[in-house]
């Protein structure tokens, strides 16, 4: 319990640091949301100055940071100039979609990568292992940007999108209809993300399994005449699980980055398009909000991985509780 609290405190400190860093960058930024307005002859200088005053852009940075902190504690995360509304509802709307996409992709990527990794470690010279190593090399060399574009092109050209009803815009249909609608839209971006993350997971699974299979107790278990599949999935995989669980946390960073790009390319209404639009508009608080959210995602991913490690490995449990 003490460990848990310390871990949460650490994460909070990290988030504060990230927000401070963002505001430090903000100081460097030339111009703001309203500088573009000055180009228009219909808007006078006084109006622009007035707007700046209204949004406290004329105040020094530490005051703005203090106000931002206040609004964060009110659950607003600052104010979006472009949307004329607090940032939090804007971002939370999109965050759900990003979370849905990344968690789906992560789930299926692990479902594919772990069995393949285990099998290819079990028979390193086999057909499957060779197939996996070629596939891994190929997909590692293919950037997710290209993969996303190719997938989109193929989907459009084969008419596959139309048959799935993906041509329709995202509707607010409820219940079964809504679920079907979401799923059909989810398949393509999730597929691209799975394809980009499987190779890394596969490599790590295979190497962890190889190490576990080489250890003496596996030979002992084998000498006891236990079935090979049981040795693989019951004895060896459990021993190999440790680095994989920590990978769960660290691989999340890559997945979030990839998802950002895939969302923009495929038009998935997640954080990606919102963030890009905010950058082009100089809507700084939305940018900071998005960045903070990604930090929260990553921190909670690490946190969950830590808890899982705690649950899986008795050695760590003993070490941290003492």
């Amino acid at each position, binding site marked *: 319990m003490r460990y848990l609290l310390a871990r949460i405190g650490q994460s909070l400190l*990290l988030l504060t*640091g*990230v927000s401070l*860093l*963002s505001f430090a*960058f*903000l100081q*460097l*930024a*030339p*111009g703001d949301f309203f500088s573009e307005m000055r180009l228009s002859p219909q808007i006078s200088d006084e109006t622009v100055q007035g707007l700046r005053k209204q949004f406290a852009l004329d105040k020094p940075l530490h005051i703005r940071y203090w106000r931002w902190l206040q609004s964060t504690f009110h659950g607003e995360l600052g104010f979006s100039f472009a949307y004329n509304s607090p940032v939090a509802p804007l971002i939370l709307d999109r965050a759900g979609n990003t979370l849905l996409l990344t968690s789906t992709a992560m789930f299926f990527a692990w479902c594919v990568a772990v069995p393949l990794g285990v099998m290819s470690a079990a028979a390193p010279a086999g057909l499957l292992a060779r197939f996996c190593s070629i596939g891994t*090399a190929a997909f*590692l*060399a*293919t*950037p997710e*940007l*290209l993969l996303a*574009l*190719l997938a*989109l*092109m193929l989907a*459009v*050209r084969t008419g596959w999108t139309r048959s799935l009803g993906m041509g329709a815009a995202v509707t607010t249909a409820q219940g079964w209809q809504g679920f079907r609608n979401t799923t059909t839209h989810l398949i393509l971006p999730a597929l691209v993300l799975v394809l980009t993350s499987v190779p890394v997971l596969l490599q790590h699974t295979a190497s962890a399994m190889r190490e576990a299979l080489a250890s003496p107790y596996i030979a002992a278990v084998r000498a006891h005449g236990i079935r090979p599949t049981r040795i693989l999935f019951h004895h060896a995989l459990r021993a190999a699980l440790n680095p994989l669980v920590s990978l769960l946390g660290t691989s*999340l*960073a*890559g997945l*979030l*980055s*990839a998802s*950002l*790009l895939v969302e*923009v*390319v495929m038009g998935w209404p997640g954080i990606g398009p919102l*963030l*890009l639009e*905010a*950058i*082009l508009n*100089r809507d*700084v608080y939305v*940018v*900071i909000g*998005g*960045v903070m959210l*990604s*930090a929260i*995602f*990553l*921190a909670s991913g690490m946190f969950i991985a830590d808890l899982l490690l705690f649950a899986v490995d008795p050695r760590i449990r003993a070490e941290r509780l003492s």
Partner: protein
Amino acid sequence: MSPRRQLVLPLVCLGIVHLAVLLAGFIAPYNYAEQDRNLPFAPPSRIHFFDIQGKFHFRPFVYERTEEEDQFRVYQELTARQFPLQFFSRGSDSKFAGTVATNLHLFGVKLPARISLMGTDSYGRDVFSRLVYGGRISLLAGLLATALSLLGGTTLGALSGFYGGWLDAVIMRLAELFLALPWLYLLFAVRAFLPLHITPADAFLMIIAVIGFVGWAKPARLVRGVVLSARERGYVVAGRGFGASDFYLLQRHIFPQVSSVILAQAALLIPQYILAEVTLSFLGLGVGEPVPSWGSILGSLQQYHVLVSCWWMFFPGVVLIPVFFSYSQLSQALQERFV
């Protein structure tokens, strides 16, 4: 494969790509900004050996193309006149290896015909030429950004590991902050606070600065680890006992230990940074028109009709595959060698 061949093969492949890009003015038949408004989104030129009578020509040739009447972006070959492919031809002005002005090109055809190996873009510019020129931006950005982030990372990491204490604590906490964000988000965040409308040259330098700045944390942590262990080695302690200065110790005794780590990191970082440049330019946050980068050429695929009907616009993305593959082979070989 023997370890030596494992190193040589990707190096040769990368060498060819970089040489082609360096000699862009010679390899590319046209200038990257040369437009032909009569040929927007034309597919790659057909290179013929047989004319319409079925007669074989030893020297391959192309036909001039025009847009078909009443049809949008459908091109027809004018078979009346053949334009043989010329090697070492004289064409539009360019700079050989970026310095000597010349109009010599590796290959070309006489006007009014045009040869476009990879089709043309929305302004009728030759995609192959733009790809070769664009490699300059994309590959150089990767190299320079890597140099920058490794320089920063090594310096900070070495200071942190060598001196320890509060300096170490400050630098490592700062590195943790940078590592607390997914790198594309971090890249976006830093890019967000910099000006949008700037000249291509400024944009290029800015992108390198941004990518290099964002990436210092990981190498810094690695270098710190190595320095931390190297500093306690007997010969370093002995050197200190003989009154060697800190700088001498770092440069003479510790840096050789670190250099292999840096080399392996470079092979890992360069492709990642090339991709970062491509991504930024793809999204319109990088180097702008008319200067090409692989990302900005790919960026036209964001338009629906280009995505669906202009498959040749995918070429800049496809070129990334052998480059990335070579780098990943290289980093694997380096890691096996040093670790």
